[in-house]
C-alpha cells in the first residue's frame, strides 16, 4: 500500500504576516546591502528595505526565505529565534569578555633610529633616565594582572627596547613569576627594529618564549629612507636580524609590520615583493598614524587618505594575484574585516572595535609609570597632550584608572552604535570607534564622520571587499576563505566548474 505524502505547501505554510528584526541598509551598486545586528548581510534587489517596512515582500519568494534565514524578518510560522540571534550578537562581541588583554610596556624611550614617522618622542641612545625603573616595572606588572583577563599579552616596546635589555629580562622574569601566582597565562612579544639584536638576546627570547615583532617597510631604498640611522643600514640590519631570529626562534615566532609613508605610495608592488622574497606569508598595508612625529613632519611623510586607498586597492589586487599563483600571502586588514563580515566572530584587533579597544583591550605603561589608553595616546602625551593619560602606576589602581575623568570622557565616544553618522551606518558591525584618532585629527573625540580619515578609509575598504563578495568569483572567495581558515590557497586549477 502506497504511503501518501502531504504537498510541499503543507510543510511551509504561507505566513499571514511578517515582522521585522533590526537591520541597517545602504545602496550598493545596483543592489541594496542589508546588515543585521550580528553583522549577517544580504545583497538584495533595490527596494527590498522598503518592501520589508511596507510588508509587501512576497512571502513565498526565495528573497523572503533569505530574509528569514538571515534574521531580517520572522513570521507566525517560525519562532523568532531571538536566542539564536542574541547568541550571534554575543559571539560578535566576544572580544569584550575578560577585559584588557594587551599590555604594552615602554621599557625605554631611547632609540638609535630617527624615523620621520615615529610615534614616539625618541631619546638618544645614551640617556638612560628614559628607561623604566624596577619599581615602575613591578607596579605595572601588578596592574597588568589585575585585569580580569585569564590570558594576557605583554608587549615590550620602546623606543628601541633592546637598548634596555636588562630591563626586559627583569620584566619577563617578574611577569612570569606573577602569572604563576595569579594562575594566568602569559604571551610575550618584543617589538624591535632588530638593529642591535645579538644572538645572546635572541637565544634568551627563544628560551623565554618571547616572540619577535619587527619593522620591514619594503626594499632597501625605501626602508632605509623611512628609517634613518647612523650608517644608513637599517634595512641590512633588519634583514640580518630577521634571518637570525628565524634560525634561533623559528619561522612562526617572527613577524614584520610595515608603515606606509608618502614615499611608499608609489612602490606597493616592490613592498609586497619584498615580503614574498623574505618568505613572509602576511603583510599589513598600514597607513601612517596621524600622531607624533608623523604630524610634525607631515610634509615629509604625510598624504591624503584617498592616496592611501589607491595604494591599498592596488596592493590588495597584487596580493590576490600572488595568491592565485600559489604563494600564500594574506593582507591583514582585509583578513580582519573579512572575518567580521563572513564569520560569526569578532576580532581582537584593538584599532577597529566598538566599544573602542583603547583601555578595554589595551593599556600602555610608559617608562615613567604613566598609563595610557593606547600607544597613540602615549604619543599624544609626548606632544604635551595629556587627554588620554588615565593615571600613573604608582598612585592608581585598575579601578581608578577606569573611572578617571580621562577614561570616562573617552568611553562616552567609544561606541559607534551611538555616534552621529555611525548609528545608521550599514557597516557599523564591521567598523569601530576611535576617539583618540578623532581627537588627534579633528580636535573632537566624537569626530565628524563625513570628513574623517578613519571613516573614509574603513567605508572604502569595506565597500571594496563587498565588491569582491558581490562578484563571488570562486577563486577570489576561496583565497579569502583560506586566509580566514588557514586552509590551503586555491589555485586556478581548483576553480569550481
Amino acid at each position: 500500500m502506497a504511503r501518501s505524502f502531504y504537498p510541499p505547501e503543507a510543510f511551509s505554510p504561507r505566513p499571514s504576516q511578517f515582522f521585522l528584526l533590526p537591520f541597517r541598509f545602504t545602496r550598493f551598486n545596483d543592489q541594496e546591502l542589508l546588515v543585521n545586528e550580528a553583522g549577517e548581510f544580504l545583497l538584495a534587489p533595490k527596494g527590498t528595505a522598503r518592501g520589508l517596512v511596507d510588508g509587501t515582500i512576497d512571502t513565498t519568494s526565495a528573497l523572503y526565505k533569505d530574509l528569514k534565514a538571515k534574521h531580517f524578518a520572522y513570521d507566525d510560522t517560525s519562532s523568532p529565534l531571538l536566542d539564536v540571534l542574541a547568541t550571534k550578537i554575543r559571539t560578535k562581541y566576544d572580544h569584550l569578555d575578560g577585559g584588557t588583554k594587551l599590555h604594552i610596556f615602554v621599557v625605554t624611550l631611547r632609540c638609535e633610529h630617527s624615523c620621520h614617522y615615529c610615534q614616539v618622542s625618541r631619546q638618544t641612545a645614551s640617556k638612560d633616565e628614559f628607561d623604566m625603573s624596577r619599581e615602575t616595572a613591578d607596579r605595572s606588572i601588578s596592574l597588568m594582572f589585575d585585569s580580569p583577563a585569564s590570558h594576557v599579552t605583554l608587549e615590550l616596546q620602546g623606543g628601541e627596547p633592546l637598548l634596555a635589555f636588562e630591563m626586559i629580562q627583569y620584566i619577563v622574569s617578574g611577569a612570569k613569576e606573577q602569572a604563576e601566582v595569579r594562575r594566568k597565562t602569559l604571551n610575550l612579544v618584543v617589538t624591535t627594529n632588530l638593529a642591535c639584536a645579538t644572538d645572546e638576546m635572541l637565544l634568551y627570547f627563544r628560551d623565554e618564549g618571547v616572540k619577535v615583532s619587527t619593522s620591514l617597510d619594503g626594499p632597501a631604498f625605501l626602508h632605509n629612507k623611512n628609517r634613518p640611522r647612523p650608517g644608513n643600514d637599517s634595512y641590512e640590519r633588519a634583514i640580518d636580524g630577521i634571518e637570525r631570529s628565524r634560525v634561533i626562534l623559528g619561522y612562526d615566532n617572527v613577524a614584520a609590520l610595515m608603515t606606509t609613508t608618502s614615499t611608499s605610495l608609489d612602490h606597493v608592488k616592490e613592498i609586497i615583493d619584498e615580503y614574498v622574497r623574505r618568505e613572509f606569508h602576511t603583510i599589513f598595508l598600514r597607513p601612517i598614524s596621524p600622531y607624533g612625529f608623523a604630524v610634525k613632519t607631515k610634509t615629509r611623510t604625510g598624504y591624503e587618505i584617498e592616496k592611501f586607498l589607491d595604494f591599498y586597492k592596488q596592493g590588495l589586487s597584487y596580493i590576490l594575484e600572488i595568491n592565485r599563483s600559489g604563494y600564500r600571502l594574506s593582507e591583514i586588514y582585509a583578513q580582519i574585516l573579512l572575518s567580521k563580515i563572513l564569520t560569526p566572530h569578532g576580532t581582537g584587533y584593538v584599532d577597529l572595535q566598538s566599544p573602542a579597544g583603547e583601555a578595554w583591550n589595551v593599556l600602555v605603561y610608559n617608562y615613567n609609570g604613566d598609563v595610557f589608553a593606547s600607544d597613540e595616546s602615549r604619543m599624544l602625551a609626548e606632544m604635551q597632550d595629556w587627554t588620554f593619560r588615565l593615571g600613573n602606576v604608582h598612585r592608581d589602581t585598575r579601578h581608578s584608572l577606569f573611572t578617571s575623568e580621562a577614561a570616562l570622557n573617552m568611553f562616552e565616544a567609544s561606541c559607534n552604535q551611538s555616534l552621529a553618522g555611525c548609528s545608521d551606518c550599514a557597516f557599523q558591525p564591521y567598523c569601530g570607534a576611535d576617539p583618540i584618532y578623532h581627537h588627534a585629527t579633528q580636535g573632537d573625540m566624537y569626530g565628524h564622520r563625513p570628513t574623517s580619515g578613519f571613516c573614509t578609509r574603513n567605508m572604502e575598504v569595506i565597500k571594496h571587499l563587498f565588491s569582491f563578495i558581490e562578484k563571488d568569483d570562486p577563486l577570489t572567495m576561496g583565497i579569502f576563505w583560506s586566509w580566514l581558515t588557514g586552509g590551503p590557497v586555491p589555485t586556478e586549477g581548483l576553480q569550481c566548474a
Partner: protein
Amino acid sequence: MEQQRESSLPHKTTASLRISNEVVSVDALLKTCYWFSRDFFCDVQKDGPGFSLVSLKRKDSSPIQMEELRDTFMNHALDFALRERVTAKTADIRDILLAKAFSESGVLEDRPEGVFGDPIEEAKSDGMFKILGNS
C-alpha cells in the same frame, strides 16, 4: 512633495529644497545634511506648517554637481526616512536582543515558542503520533 528653488547667485552654488515633513522628518533631514556637510554648508528651517526648507551652499571642494544635487539629496533623505521607520518598528525587539546577548545569568533566555513536534500530524484527529509540546 518638494521643490527646488534655483539660486539667483552666479554659477548656481546654492540651492533650496522645500520638503514635506510627512515624507521626510526633520530628524531625517538633519541626518542627511550631516553627510552633505563635507561638500555643502547646510541649513534647515521651518517653512510653513509641515514643511522644511533645506538650504545648501556648495563648498569649493564638492564633487557633487549642482544639477545632480536635488536627486542626490532626496535619495539620501528618503533612505534616512526609511531607516527611521525600520528603527521605529524594531526598537523594542532590538532592546530585548541586546539585553539577551549581554545577560550572563541566562535569566533572559526563553524557551523557544511553539510545539516540539509535527503540527500537521498533531492537527489531525487520527494523527499517528504526537510529541509533547512545551506548553
